[in-house]
C-alpha cells in the first residue's frame, strides 16, 4: 500500500520540521485524548496488487459460471451489447479522474459531452430540455414528481400500478416526508393503466399522472389518451422510461404530450453491474427548465468570442440555493452519462433503431413460441416491446429452479410485487439472446409444464 503514499519517512520529517512540530501526533492535538484510538483498525492485513487481484477473482467466481447462463431477466435492468469503444474511451483518465466541471476552462471536454448528452436525451424523448443526469430510474421519478409539485403546487400524484414497483417504493419513501399524496391506479386486463380509474381519480388537486412507457409488463401505454385526460384536469403527464432502447422504435413521449419524462439510461452502454451504477435522466418542456433538478450544461462564448460550455442556471442547485434548491443532488452519474453518449453516438440513428428492432422481433418470436406451449399463455393482450408476461400453470419459482439447472435464468416472478400475478413471470428478450437459446428455453419449458 506504500505505492499510493509517495512521501518517504525522510520527506515526512522534512515536512514536520517545516510545519514546526515534533511528531505527527502533535497535529492531532485538537482531538480529545479519550477519542484517540490506541489500537489499529481491525481490518485484514494489506494485500499486494497481485494478491488483491487473486482475492477479487476468487470472490467473483463465487457467483458461479454466470457467463455460461442465458438470462431472460429484465425489469428495469437490461442486457445489451456494449461496443468496445465505450469502455475504451471511458477509461481515459481525463474523463474518469476529473471532478464536476465547476472550473469550465479546465473541463471543456466534460462540458461538451454533457451538452451532447442533453441533446441526445431531448432527441430521444422528444422533449426540449434535459439535465446532466440523476442517480437512476427510481430517484429520477421521485425528482420528477417533486418537480411537478413545484410547478403546479398540487399535493396529489396518481401513479399507475404498471410503473416499476421499486420505483413506486422509492417514490413513496421520498414523498411521505414532504406531504405529497400518492394514489395508485390499477392496471386493467390488457395490462395497461385503467383509464376509467384515471378519469375518476384525476381532479384539480392532482399534480401529475405517472405512467411508464413501455410499462413494467412491456406494454405500450396509450399516451395520447392519457395526455388528454391528464391535461383536461390541469395535471401534468409524467412518463417513465425504464427501457429507453424502445425509443429507437417507439414514438417519443414528447410528441405524444408528455410534460416531464424521467427514466433509466443503463441500457445505453452501461453494464448490468448487479444494479449500479446506473443513469437517471429527466427531460421536460423549456417553460419548466428552471424547475429542473441537477446540473445543466449550457453553450456560451468566452470573453474572446470563442465557443465553449459552462454549467448554468446554478441558482437552482444546492450549493447556491441551499435549503430552497430544486434538489439536494450534487454528485450525479456523469461517467455513466458519458458511456450513454458514446454508445448513442456510435449506434446513431440507424443503429439504435436496429437494436430496438432486434429486441422487439426476438421478444415477439419468444412470445409466440412460449404462449403456444401447453400450460403457458400470455397474460396480457396488446403490443409489447422486449418484455411480456407469461402466466404458467406450474408455480413459476419451481419452473425457474428447474431452468437454472439447464443454465437458463428464467423470467422474473411477479409474486413479490403483484399478488394478483403470483402465477406469472416477466420475460425479457434482448438482442443478446440467440434464437437457439429461445428455442432451447421453449423445449425445456415444454418438458416442465
Amino acid at each position, binding site marked *: 500500500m506504500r505505492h499510493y503514499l509517495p512521501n518517504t519517512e525522510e520527506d515526512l520529517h522534512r515536512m514536520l520540521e517545516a510545519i514546526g512540530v515534533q511528531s505527527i501526533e502533535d497535529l492531532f492535538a485538537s482531538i480529545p485524548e479519550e477519542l484517540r484510538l490506541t489500537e*489499529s483498525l481491525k481490518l485484514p492485513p494489506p494485500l499486494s496488487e497481485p494478491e488483491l487481484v487473486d482475492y477479487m477473482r476468487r470472490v467473483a467466481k*463465487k457467483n458461479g459460471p454466470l457467463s455460461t447462463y442465458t438470462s431472460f431477466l429484465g425489469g428495469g435492468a437490461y442486457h445489451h451489447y456494449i461496443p468496445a469503444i465505450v469502455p475504451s474511451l471511458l477509461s481515459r483518465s481525463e474523463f474518469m479522474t476529473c471532478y464536476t466541471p465547476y472550473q469550465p476552462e479546465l473541463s471543456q471536454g466534460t462540458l461538451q459531452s454533457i451538452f451532447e448528452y442533453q441533446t441526445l436525451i431531448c432527441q430521444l424523448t422528444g422533449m426540449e430540455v434535459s439535465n446532466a443526469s440523476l442517480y437512476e430510474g427510481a430517484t429520477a421519478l421521485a425528482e420528477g414528481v417533486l418537480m411537478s409539485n413545484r410547478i403546479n403546487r398540487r399535493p396529489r400524484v396518481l401513479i399507475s400500478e404498471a410503473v416499476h414497483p421499486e420505483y413506486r417504493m*422509492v417514490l413513496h419513501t421520498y414523498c411521505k416526508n414532504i406531504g405529497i399524496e400518492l394514489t395508485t391506479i390499477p392496471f386493467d386486463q390488457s395490462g395497461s393503466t385503467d383509464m376509467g380509474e384515471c378519469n375518476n381519480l384525476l381532479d384539480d388537486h392532482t399534480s401529475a399522472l405517472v405512467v411508464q412507457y413501455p410499462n413494467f409488463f412491456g406494454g405500450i401505454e396509450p399516451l395520447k389518451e392519457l395526455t388528454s385526460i391528464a391535461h383536461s384536469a390541469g395535471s401534468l403527464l409524467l412518463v417513465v422510461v425504464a427501457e429507453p432502447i424502445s425509443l429507437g422504435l417507439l414514438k417519443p413521449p414528447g410528441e405524444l404530450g408528455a410534460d416531464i419524462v424521467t427514466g433509466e439510461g443503463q441500457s445505453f452502454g452501461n453494464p448490468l453491474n448487479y444494479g449500479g451504477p446506473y443513469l437517471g435522466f429527466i427531460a421536460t418542456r423549456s417553460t419548466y427548465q428552471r424547475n429542473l433538478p441537477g446540473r445543466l450544461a449550457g453553450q456560451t462564448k468566452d470573453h474572446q468570442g470563442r465557443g465553449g460550455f459552462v454549467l448554468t442556471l446554478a441558482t437552482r442547485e444546492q450549493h447556491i440555493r441551499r435549503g430552497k434548491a430544486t434538489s439536494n443532488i450534487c454528485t450525479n452519474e456523469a461517467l455513466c452519462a458519458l458511456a450513454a453518449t458514446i454508445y448513442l453516438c456510435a449506434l446513431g440513428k440507424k443503429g439504435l433503431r436496429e437494436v430496438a428492432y432486434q429486441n422487439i422481433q426476438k421478444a415477439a418470436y419468444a412470445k409466440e413460441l412460449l404462449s403456444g406451449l401447453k400450460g403457458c399463455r400470455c397474460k396480457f393482450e396488446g403490443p409489447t416491446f422486449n418484455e411480456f408476461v407469461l402466466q404458467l400453470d406450474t408455480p413459476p419459482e419451481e419452473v425457474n429452479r428447474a431452468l437454472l439447472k439447464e443454465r437458463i435464468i428464467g423470467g422474473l416472478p411477479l409474486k413479490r410485487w403483484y399478488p394478483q400475478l403470483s402465477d406469472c413471470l416477466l420475460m425479457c428478450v434482448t438482442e443478446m439472446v440467440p434464437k437457439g437459446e429461445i428455442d432451447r428455453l421453449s423445449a425445456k419449458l415444454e418438458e416442465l409444464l
Partner: protein
Amino acid sequence: MNQGRSSLVRDEKLIFELSKPGRQGYSLPKLDLSPQPLEKLLPPSYIRDDIAGFPEVSEVEVVRHFTRLSTWNYGIDTGLYPLGSCTMKYNPKVNEQVSTLEEFAISHPYQPEELSQGNLKVMKTLEEFLAEITGMDRVSLQVVAGAHGELVGLMLIRAYHDFRGEKKTKVLIPDSAHGTNPASAYFAGYQVEEIPSNSEGRIDLDHLRQVVNQEVAALMLTNPNTLGLFEEEILQIAEIIHHSGGLIYCDGANMNALMGIAKPGDMGIDVLHLNLHKTFSTPHGGGGPGGGAVAVNRALEPFLPVPLVEKGDRGYYLNYDRPNSIGKVRSFYGNFAVMVKALAYILTMGGEGLRLVSEAAVVNANYIRKKLAGIYHLPYDLPNMHEVVFSDKIQAAKGVQTIDIAKRLMDYGFHPPTIYFPLIVHGALMIEPTETESIEELDAFIEAMKSIAIEAEENPELVRSAPHLTKVSRLDEVTAARKPVLRWQP
C-alpha cells in the same frame, strides 16, 4: 516556474455537426430469425419515424471526437487537484480492473442469490469494514452519493422520532455546512435553523444550548468541519443534543482526516454518511458515479433501507423482512461496481495503511498552511486537519480576488482549490491536497501560489485577466444564464 503548457490541442465540433447520412459507427449481427411486420407488433401511430437530429458517424469519428474532448480536461492523473471537501486522491487502476471482472459486470440485480454470492460477499464485507472504520454498528450501501446519504440519514432520524411518537420539526445546521446539508433537510421534511460558528470557526456551544429544544430532531455537523478544524467539543455537543431528545448526523465527507485516528461512533454520532468517491478512492468521473454508505448505531438500525445483506447458514442473502425500514431509496442495491473499487482500496491499505493515509493527508495540508501563511490570509490560524482555508483578503487590497487567483493557477498547470466555500469565509480558498501528493508536487503548487501572490502585488491585471494558457478563457456565464442554450438544434 512550472507553467501550464499543452501540446497541440485540436478544436472539435459537436458530434451532431460531424454527422453525415449513411455513416455507421456500430457493428451488429443480423437478426437470426424471421421478422414480423412492425405494424403487426406495434400500433402504427406509435411507431417512430426517425430520431431527428441523431448523429450518423463512423467509429473512427466517435473515437477521435471523444479522445479530443478528453484532452481538454484536467484530472487527478494530470496533477494536483486540491479541491477542498472533495478528497481528490489518486484512483488506483487495479480497482478499475477488478470492478470489471466479468462475473460482477454481467450480474443482473434480480438474478438468483445462488448466482450472486460473490456480489453479496463484496457488499457485506465492505459494510463490515466501513462499520469498523467508523465505529458504527450497521451500514447500508444503498445510497449512491453523499447528498443521497444525507437525505437517507435524515429520513432515518425522522423514522426514529416517528416510531417513538415524537414530533420534531427542526434540524440545526452550522453556517459553515455544505449546501447539500440544508437541501437534504428540506427534502426530508424539516425546517432548517442555521447556527453561527464562533470566532474559532467551530460550533458555538452557548448558542447551541440556547436554541436546542424539543422541536429539534437533529444537529447536522461535519467533523472535521469545512474549515478543516476538528470540533474539539464534540462530546459536549452530542450531550447537549441527546439530552433534549435529538440525534446527531455527521457529514462524513471529511473522513480522510480520521481513519485509524478516531471513530465517529465514539463521538456520540448517531448516523453518518461516507463518500466512497472521496475517502475510498473511487473515481469522480466528471461528476459521478459516486458511492455512498450510511452508517448507524443500534437505535437507528431497524429503519435502514431495505434490503439488507445478511449471512445465513446457506450463504449470503438479501433480507427484505424489515418491518420498520424506511423503504427503498434507490432501485436495486446501490452502486455495486463502485463498492467493488472501495473494497479493493481498503483491502490494499489495511488498517495500518488507512491510518497512514489520514496522517499523510493531515501532514500535507498543514505543510501547505505553513508555507502559505502570511502570503495568503488565514481566517482561522489554527491547526487544521486534512484541509486548510485561506481567503483573498491580502490580494483583494490590490483588486485581485479569489476567482482571479483560481484562474491564474490554471496557467501554472494546476486545478484550482474549492472557491467561495465555506460561505462564512469571504473569498474562501479551500485547499485539500490529500495524501497521494508528493512533497515535490506540493512544493510546485506552493511556488505557483507564491508567484501569483507576487503578481497580485506587481501586476494585478495579469491575474485578473487569467487564465491565458487554457483552450478557452473566462466564459460568459451571464448570457448562459439569461439566455440558456441547453441543447444543440440543427
